[in-house]
C-alpha cells in the first residue's frame, strides 16, 4: 500500500479529491472518505474532523450540494453531488496541481525519488 501522505499535504488536495469523486457520482460523507482512501491507494486519508469542514466549505461556495436520502441500508444519509459551478472548478484545479507538481519536481526531483 502507498505510504500515507502527511495531513498538511493531504489537506490541500481535499478540494480536488472531493470534486473529482463527486464528478462521477453522488456520495455521502463516509463514502467520500472511504473512496478517497481506496482510490488514492491509501495515500490520502480524511477523517471526520478534516472532511466535514471541507464539505461544508465547498457547499457554501456553491460547488457541491447536499440532500438527505436513504442509502441502500435504508438509513438517512446526506448525499453530496457536484453543481455546475463545481464542475467548472475541476479543470482549473487540475491545472493548478499539475503546475504545482511540475514545479516541485523541478525543484526537488520528486519523480526520481
Amino acid at each position, binding site marked *: 500500500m502507498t505510504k500515507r501522505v502527511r495531513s498538511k499535504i493531504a489537506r490541500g488536495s481535499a478540494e480536488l479529491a472531493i470534486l473529482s469523486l463527486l464528478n462521477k457520482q453522488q456520495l455521502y460523507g463516509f463514502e467520500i472518505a472511504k473512496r478517497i482512501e481506496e482510490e488514492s491507494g491509501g495515500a490520502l*486519508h480524511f477523517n471526520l*474532523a*478534516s472532511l466535514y469542514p471541507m464539505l*461544508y466549505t465547498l457547499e457554501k461556495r456553491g460547488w457541491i450540494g447536499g440532500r438527505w436520502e436513504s442509502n441502500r441500508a435504508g438509513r438517512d444519509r446526506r448525499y453530496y453531488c457536484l453543481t455546475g459551478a463545481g464542475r467548472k472548478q475541476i479543470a482549473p484545479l487540475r491545472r493548478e496541481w499539475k503546475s504545482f507538481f511540475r514545479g516541485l519536481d523541478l525543484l526537488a526531483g520528486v519523480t526520481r525519488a
Partner: protein
Amino acid sequence: MRDWNVLVREKFSGRGLDELQRTEVVSELAAHLEDLYEHQRSLGIGEAEAISRALNEVNNWRQLSRDISSTKKPEGHMNYRTKSLWLPGFTTLTAAMGALAIIMGHDVHRFYFEPRIYWYGSMAVMEIYLPWLAILPIIGGIGAYLSRLANGNLKTRLAAALFPALVVFALFCPGIVVTAVFEHHLNWHVLPVAFAGMVFSWVLLPGAALTLGALPFLRSSQVRDAEYSGS
C-alpha cells in the same frame, strides 16, 4: 447498540448555529461515526476497538465545532461574488478615477472651461493621460490581488482588474447612440472613427495597462491550504 447521535450532540456544541443547522450537522456526523463503526466491525474488529477507532476520528471536538460553525454561519452582507468581483472591481474603478482626478489636480478647471484647447493638446496627453496610463498597472494588480484573496477564479480576477475599462466601455456604447440620435449636426462618418478612437484611448490601452499589472496574480496561485484543521 450505541446511540451516536447522543454522543455527538454531547460533544458538538455548534455555537453560532441555529437549532436546525445544529441538528442536521449532529445527525450527519453521527451517521459518519456509525458507518465507520460498522465498517470496522465488518472487518472483524472487536466492538471496543471499533468504538475507540470511531471516536479517534476527532481529537478536538471544540476545534471541530468552531471550524464547522464558522463555515456554516451566514456570510453576512457580503457573498462570494461581492468579495471576489464587486469589491475589488469598485476598488480599481475608484482608484483609477481617483488617480485621474489627482493627476488633473488644479487643471480640472481648465479641462471644463477650455476643453478644446486643453483636451486636444499634446500637453494633456503628456501631463495627464500618459502618467495615468503608467499608474494603471498598479491599480490592475491591486484589483486582481484583492480578487485572488477572496478566492476569485481566473476570469473573476481579470474582470476585477479590468473593471474601470469595462465600465468606461459600458458608458461609451449608449453614449455613442445618444450622440448619434441627438447631435444631428455631426457627420455620420465621423462617429465611428470618434468611437473607435475613444475606445482605443479609454478602453483598450487602459485595459492593456490594467491587465499588465494583473498578470502576476492571474497565474495559477500556489495550492491553497484548506481552511480547516483536523486529522
